[in-house]
């Protein structure tokens, strides 16, 4: 193929400079990369996947299987872009891919020499490796695979992050119109006239669809002009939103559509403050699908040479882009549209050397079009092969008998550097097929039609098998009326233009393959040949899905848009069945490949929200290393300069035991439970009793799942007769809220309880240590914090520097301790006040590590022990499971297996020889080399300043009966094996004198 810019089109349009494989070219405003390459005579733009055969430009749209290039560079480097879709911009930089060293000379093309051996199913039958002792099949394949992997793959992925941004948009409308061709314009106009909110999407830069290059006159105007005016008129309406460069990619349940708008892909980089692409989620009351049809080829030997392209694509390059696809174009067709393509190309100045039609005869109008093209006409003939090295030089033509599907007569040669081929049209019903809509075969049109609607969509135009402009306008309006009715609107007004032009028959002859010697390609990207389809048949892979999976037909980046029906036709012929008997595969979303970042939208680079407590900035300013705890960031420890995390937490924990410390507990889940039945409700939720909790008291509570396993824990404070404040674990906050709401709404709607999540409303600080009361006493007003007035588990209100607070005397550390809560906005002020009040006691802030150390020393359980597989009994908390009342999980917690003594039970272990016990260790009896099986594992590990030893809480089989036993905490993946003694988990102050004091 040696395309060129047609004389008539040489003037006009701004010149745009671009490079392909480093070479500079000039294109024109309005070009796609494909048309610009074609205008510059570039014929080979890529290589096929398997055989690395040269590939040219096959289509003029999103169905392109061959012309894939890599665009841009650096973080914007993008592989596998269809040259037929990318709009040319100044400075565009493109490279061919899947070739080495160059696209014209690719050493990997040696693959094709393997020829017939490299057929479908090749890999399944070999590379199993020699079968001998000690040589696993796996190893041989794994060795070969790395070379195979390197040869496969198309373009290279980028290696750095994309600097562009992506966004998401949600939209609702009454009528969604997909496709802004003739049918879409008609539908949108009609729907808009009835007052419906309309969104119309089209994948091209401008609307109009086939009108942009159609020879017809509409209301006396050239079709392209008419379309342009019509689009403008629609755009001016308040109730119409037009999204161009926007592909509706998928249809989901409930008339929900994903559309991708390429906001800035036609520029070298996005405009400031604009995303590169935008993903629209459109929820429509009803939808008109007017996505047109996709031309398909006839398969013949040698049909993969660059220069073979679809007839309508060749026509569009000539008519719409002013580019001749070749010096001499031969048209090969089984239907009338090929003839019109020849005529239109000739009108644009392209030399059409031949029209080859498999049909013995055509109607007069069509013949006249052929005559106008001045081409040599071959009726009842077929192309049986092509000639050329890398570029097409000509084709062989023989007589063809359509009915018997046989070749005859002498082989004739026609010189051409482009074959424009048309095998008829396949309606583009991909969206409805994604939703499981079963297509129906139309024998007359030799095409699948979308079939019954399974949702509120209505097909129009070629998508529904209604070809031609007159049909498009009529069915577009009809579909709009049905959509309007569906969406609850009136019928609107009709405005169909007067159309002057060809009236042709779109039904093709049922010929989709010319079976002659030589490689005939069905899937151009994956190099699936007609022989591969027949081989699949021979090996029994005859169902459509097997055919597809065995040969990889239709699995390439184009998802077989131009090859599915031809592949089916060949299988049908081989099986001696009709095409619908063979079946059709379901199209999978998306319609065309979508950049991953577009689907991530604003979450690209921002995976999820970060939650910070009101005191966050203070923590960071004071040396805290912040630690991700679910969505929250919490201080791990406050490191003095040069201090390690371990040194810091040991210092902090020691200080708490000696004097006083404070810790930010704002992340705890907090739920306000109110109502006359609040106490009864909590009594049913918690495994221990809550009905009789006095006002002004808090209680530690356990929640079970309905299956009797532990769910969450925390303290709940009775603030008033009918009001409780429940605290939950940080991680469990959301789940507990849902758990409570479920039981309130669904299980016991008769209970009068209101639940409000107040986690974000309250900031919380725990003050712990023997001096904690003195610290509070120094700053709290309107509340007596003496032991008598505020005993252990007491809850009071008060003020600190004028801030109203709740003070609860709770202890997680085992020390005398208080939790102080205030409105979140005052959190920092509260913190500052407590720090100031503690100054003379040398108060320290402490982080999660110290918090954890203190509770481990005390034997208190937390997240690592509540792993979803433990019961209260396992953790030594059976005493908190009431046998006097019923509650969630009571019945199933009672099952014998849940109470068995051989379960893993909570213990502590202490390192015997001072070696560190490392997180994730298992408890075993054996040596490092022969550890034996696991009998349990550590859960929470630390160095205990109180015991001056490395300790850990652990879950151990029959653990409570094994205190005093010597074992090993083994950690082979961290290369450690530590001698430990099993001890009672209540290591510090088991009687609780310190916290009660």
């Amino acid at each position, binding site marked *: 193929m040696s395309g060129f810019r047609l004389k008539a089109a040489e003037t006009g349009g701004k010149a745009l400079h671009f490079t392909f494989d480093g070479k500079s070219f000039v294109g024109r405003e309005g070009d796609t990369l494909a048309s610009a390459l074609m205008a510059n005579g570039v014929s080979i733009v890529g290589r096929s*996947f398997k055989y690395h055969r040269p590939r040219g430009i096959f289509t003029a749209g999103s169905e392109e299987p061959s012309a894939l290039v890599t665009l841009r560079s650096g973080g914007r480097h993008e*592989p*596998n872009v269809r040259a037929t879709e990318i709009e040319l911009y100044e400075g565009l930089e493109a490279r061919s891919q899947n070739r080495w060293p160059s696209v014209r000379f690719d050493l990997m093309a040696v693959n094709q020499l393997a*020829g017939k*051996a490299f*057929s479908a199913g090749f*890999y399944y*039958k*070999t590379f*199993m*490796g020699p079968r001998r002792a000690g040589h696993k*099949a*796996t190893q041989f*394949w*794994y060795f070969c695979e790395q070379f195979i*992997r390197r040869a*496969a*793959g*198309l373009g290279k*992925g*980028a*290696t750095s*992050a994309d600097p562009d941004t992506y966004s998401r948009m949600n939209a609702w409308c009454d009528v969604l119109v997909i496709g802004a061709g003739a049918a879409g314009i008609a539908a949108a106009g009609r729907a808009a006239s009835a007052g419906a909110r309309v969104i119309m999407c089209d994948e091209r830069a401008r609307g109009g669809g086939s009108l942009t290059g159609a020879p017809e006159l509409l209301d006396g105007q050239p079709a392209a002009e008419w379309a342009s005016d019509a689009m403008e008129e629609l755009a001016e309406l308040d109730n119409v939103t037009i999204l161009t460069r926007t592909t509706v990619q998928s249809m*989901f349940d409930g008339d*929900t559509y*994903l559309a991708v708008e390429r906001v800035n892909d036609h520029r070298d980089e996005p405009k400031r403050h604009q995303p590169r692409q935008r993903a629209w*989620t459109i929820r429509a009351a009803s939808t008109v699908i007017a996505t047109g049809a996709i031309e398909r080829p006839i398969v013949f030997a040698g049909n993969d040479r660059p220069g073979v392209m679809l007839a309508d694509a060749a026509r569009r390059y000539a008519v719409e882009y002013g580019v001749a696809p070749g010096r001499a174009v031969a048209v090969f067709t089984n239907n009338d549209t090929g003839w019109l393509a020849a005529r239109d190309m000739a009108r644009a100045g392209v030399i059409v050397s031949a029209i080859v039609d498999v049909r013995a005869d055509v109607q007069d109008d069509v013949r006249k079009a052929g005559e106008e093209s001045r081409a040599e006409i071959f009726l009842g003939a077929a192309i049986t092969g092509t000639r050329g090295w890398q570029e097409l030089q000509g084709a062989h033509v023989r007589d063809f008998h359509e009915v018997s599907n046989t070749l005859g007569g002498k082989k004739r040669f026609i010189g051409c550097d482009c074959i424009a081929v048309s095998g008829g049209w396949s309606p583009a019903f991909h969206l409805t097929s*994604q*939703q499981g809509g079963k297509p129906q075969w139309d024998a007359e049109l030799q095409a699948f039609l979308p079939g019954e609607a399974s949702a509120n969509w209505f097909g129009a135009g070629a998508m529904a098998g209604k070809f031609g402009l007159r049909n498009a306008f009529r069915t577009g309006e009809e579909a709009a009326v049905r959509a309007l009715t569906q969406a609850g609107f009136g019928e609107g007004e009709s405005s169909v233009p007067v159309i002057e032009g060809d009236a042709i028959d779109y039904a093709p002859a049922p010929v989709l393959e010319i079976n002659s010697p030589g490689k005939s390609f069905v899937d151009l990207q994956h190099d699936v040949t007609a022989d591969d389809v027949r081989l699949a048949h*021979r*090996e*029994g892979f005859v169902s459509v*899905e097997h055919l597809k*999976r*065995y040969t990889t037909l239709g699995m390439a*980046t184009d998802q077989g848009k131009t090859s599915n029906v031809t592949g089916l036709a060949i299988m049908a012929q081989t099986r001696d069945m009709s095409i619908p008997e063979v079946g059709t595969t379901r199209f*999978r979303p*998306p319609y065309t*490949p*979508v*950049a*991953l*970042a577009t*689907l*991530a939208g604003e979450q690209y680079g*921002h*995976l999820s929200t970060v939650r910070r407590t009101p005191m966050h900035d203070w923590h960071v300013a004071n040396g805290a290393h912040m*630690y*991700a*705890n679910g969505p929250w960031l919490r201080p791990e420890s406050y490191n003095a300069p040069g201090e390690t995390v371990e040194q810091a937490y040991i210092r902090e924990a020691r200080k708490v035991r000696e004097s006083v410390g404070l810790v930010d507990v704002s992340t705890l889940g907090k739920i306000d439970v109110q109502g006359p039945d609040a106490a009864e409700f909590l009594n049913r939720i918690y495994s221990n009793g809550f009905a009789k909790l006095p006002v002004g008291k808090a209680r530690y509570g356990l929640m079970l799942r309905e299956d*009797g*396993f532990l769910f969450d824990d925390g303290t709940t404070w009775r603030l008033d007769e009918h009001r409780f404040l429940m605290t939950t674990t940080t991680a469990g906050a959301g789940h507990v809220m849902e758990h409570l709401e479920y039981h309130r709404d669904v299980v016991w709607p008769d209970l009068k309880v209101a639940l409000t999540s107040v986690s974000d409303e309250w900031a919380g600080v725990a003050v712990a240590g023997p001096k904690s009361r003195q610290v509070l006493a120094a700053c709290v007003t309107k509340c007596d914090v003496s032991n008598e007035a505020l005993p252990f588990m007491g809850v009071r209100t008060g003020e600190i520097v004028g801030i109203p607070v709740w003070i609860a005397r709770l202890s997680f550390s085992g020390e005398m301790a208080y939790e102080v809560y205030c409105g979140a906005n005052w959190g920092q002020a509260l913190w500052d006040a407590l720090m100031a009040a503690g100054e003379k006691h040398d108060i320290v802030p402490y982080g999660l590590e110290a918090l954890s150390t203190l509770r481990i020393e005390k034997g208190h359980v937390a997240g690592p022990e509540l792993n979803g597989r433990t019961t209260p009994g396992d953790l030594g908390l059976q005493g908190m499971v009431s046998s006097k009342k019923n509650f969630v999980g009571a019945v199933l917690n009672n099952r014998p*297996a849940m109470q068995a003594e051989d379960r893993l039970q909570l213990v502590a272990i202490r390192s015997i020889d001072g070696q560190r016990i490392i*997180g*994730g260790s*298992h408890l*075993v009896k054996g040596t490092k080399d022969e550890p034996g*099986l*696991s009998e349990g594992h550590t859960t929470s590990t630390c160095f205990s300043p109180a015991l001056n030893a490395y300790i850990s809480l652990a879950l151990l089989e029959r653990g409570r009966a094994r205190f005093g036993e010597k074992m090993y905490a*083994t950690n082979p993946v961290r290369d450690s094996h530590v001698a430990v003694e099993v001890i009672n988990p209540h290591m510090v102050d088991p009687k609780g004198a310190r916290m009660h004091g």
Partner: protein
Amino acid sequence: MSRYSAWEILKNAVKGNRDWTPAWRRAEPKSAYDVIIIGGGGHGLSTAYYLAKVHGITNVAVVEKGYLGSGNVGRNTTIVRSNYRLTPNSRFYEKSMELWRELSHDLNYNVMFSPRGVLNLALTPGQMDTYAERGNQMRLMGVRSELLDRDQVARLNPGLDVSGSARFPIEGGLLQPDAGNARHDAVAWGYARAADQLGVDIIENCEVNGFLKEGGRITGVETTRGTIRAAKTGVAVAGNTGKVMKLAGIDNLPIESTVLQAFVSESIKPIIKNVVTFGAGHLYVSQSDKGGLVFGGNIDYYNSYAQRGNLPVWEEVISELLAMFPAFARVKLLRSWGGVMDMSMDGSPIITTGPIDGMYLNAGWCYGGFKATPASGWCFAHTIANDKASEYNETFTLERFKNGQSIDELGAGPTPWYH
């Protein structure tokens, strides 16, 4: 029928590939068999194969309502691993690994098992401890595992964001070096071909629409291709377990069906080595031999028998993928699809005799069924042949749920959509 080999390929190529024969016979159903397996997916076919090969029971039919391998065996993300925490799972999946390693030879069919390593990324020190606990359990069970630090992880998979400024900075990961992936369709086809060669009848387009019952015992099935009697009937229909078991009068099971979506990108040159999973959500990704990034994440939560899902899961899964690999931003999603998962109440499978005499049940695979294919078939065949579970599936009973002996790897409780 010929053995597959490189030599055979060359020989046939010379003859224009005209002498290849069907990979398996298109069998007509006989009136009776010793064993019928309902479900021509991976598990059903492997069961038939091991019944014939290990137990010498060759008078076996596999009945499949659609085309062979039309269910989850051809819809999964092809991951093969045994990096489990709980002993029953660990033993079972390691048995599977043992079979995987020899499978291509065993079947004379290249299933392309590729031990490229499965890497679980840890994002907090706490998660590193959790992974260490699992890695140690693996070691103690004789399964290789390695705890890697951030640099080691980055060296294996250069596209990973290990910057430390990531929303969830990567701390390291747990690697099972012997795990990897395999070519899913090849597993179905390889088992079918090998079972067929041992005399098993594989009957496609044969939907079961009833069971034959005599005196409380299942004695065969009614199908769209006629009545077929059998001494023993095994059910291995994954997501359709509920539907099929209802035909036998079993209305309730500890299983719910949901849809799991899978995704593949366009093909790009090799960029990631391992199968990689993300610790701050649910995401697994690997790169196929063709070059596509194959990935998936959470199920669509709601009950479903539709082999397609919805948009929220796309956005969630892809956001997580890009959080790990920001350089994949412009790589394009090519295709997504769905499969119906039989989510059990504890996330672990069921391979058991019963629940009716003459019947055997293989179900509850959640989304871990592919890697289990060899061991599942091996154990199910053993259970059918001996009327008793093997040592590898003795805990995979139906009773375990009600008895409080669930095997809850995640600790998520009896909420199937959380597993």
